[in-house]
């Protein structure tokens, strides 16, 4: 069982959380100026590293708040969690 450190509640079992996929995928603007290739990049062509990935998580059965986590896809270890509106450097 993965222990997920919620930035608000501390470490909790992963069954309390919902993984929200990759974080920091910014919607391109303005929409009328965005071409097909850029929309496709935004919607579909994401990062899939074997290593650290920045993700969104929801503490669904806890404080019900969204936050970010930097998690390794190789061994699932979570290196850092931080608020939804932040983007700290990593490694710091």
């Amino acid at each position, binding site marked *: *069982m993965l222990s997920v450190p919620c930035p608000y509640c501390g470490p909790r079992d992963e*069954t309390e959380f919902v993984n929200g996929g990759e974080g920091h995928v910014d919607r391109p603007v303005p929409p009328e100026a965005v071409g097909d290739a850029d929309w496709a990049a935004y919607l*579909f*062509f994401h990062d899939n*590293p074997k290593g650290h990935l920045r993700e969104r998580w929801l503490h669904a059965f806890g404080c019900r708040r969204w936050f970010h986590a930097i998690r390794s896809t190789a061994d*699932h270890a979570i290196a850092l969690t931080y608020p939804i509106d932040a983007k700290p450097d990593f490694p710091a």
Partner: protein
Amino acid sequence: MSRNYSALALLRGALGGNRNWDQAWRSPEPRAHYDAVIVGGGGHGLATAYHLAKTHGMTNVAVLEKGWIGGGNTGRNTTIVRSDYYYPQSAAFFNHSVSLYEKLSRELNFNIMFSQRGMLTVAHSRGEVDFQRRLVNGMALNGIDMEMVTPDQARKLCPIMNFGPEARYPILGGMLQRRAGTVRHDAVVWGYARAADRVGVDIIQNCGVTGIDRDPASGAVTGVQTTRGAIGCGKLGVAVAGHSTMLADMAGFRLPLRSYALQAFVSEPLKPVLDVVASSALLGVYVSQSDKGGLVIGGNADAYASYAQRGNIPTAEAVSAALVEFIPSFSRVKMLRQWAGIVDYAHDSSPVLGLSPVPGLYLNCGWGGGGFKAIPAGGETFAHTIATGTPHPLITAFSLDRFRDLALVDEAAAAGIEH
């Protein structure tokens, strides 16, 4: 000793104490250059190499496998072969694949043990029955042998399912594909490997690809860097399932794929209790019984991106709970083994096949949790694509460009469970 497998060869082998069998395939040293290199010694890579040599006369071909052949998803899957796909493009491709499987033992001179025992997918609500009826009618229009079954027929097909009054999810019917069934996964790997070797393909194991070389001017592929040195190639086919984006990273482009762990479970051997593949999309579980008697159980993929080939406990727990709800008498069965493979999903749960942005580099990926059934057709069409440089007509709908063009083949909405 004859190189063909037959009852007579078995007898002769037995009389000789089984000491005189030839190696099924060679383990050659890699050459400096091949006309085509296939990365990935799973079913798709091996079948592709076989067809390149056999059908297209390209015999200077190598398959590079970082571990052992079949050590990826092809050797980890739950071996369900079916073609109950909803969209016409998928139906044409997967039905062709099932037809090829029906002839594959003879084609490869290797018994792949295709057991067409039928696959029953049950429905637990009026809504699900209506949805299945829509699927079955759609599939029938595409020429797939699908039929609806009533609760009574479902009970006859598989009486051990939960028909009790206490069932939280009552079984109100289901859909059945009689041609579906199971295939021995290792036999597919070994059969294709042996057949490819016999038409001249070099199968090189313990040879991981670590880099892709490109011509600085044209950008075209010129070779690969591997753990066994540099190997030049004219064309490069990539069939590495959950590791596809890593190969794309090496070549400098992105794929619309994410890698997840998908788990499976095998129980202790039981007396025969289950002679169909039984599946419930709502519960998230499917199960069949192998010839050795073990129950082979699968469910949904783990909940987050992963390259860890082991799987997480919450998913294992969810699949076990689903199995007990589905077939309560299995509650006392002990599990022997649990494992996971890394599967690559596109947003529409359809494969990504054909050309890549890099000249000379071809893609066979995005199979997610369902590409074992696709191996014979995948190999045939990928070999055509590599040999001719033009996507085979059966795979044009699965091009990488479909994401830019929003021409998705949204099987994700139609299937509801991996396998």
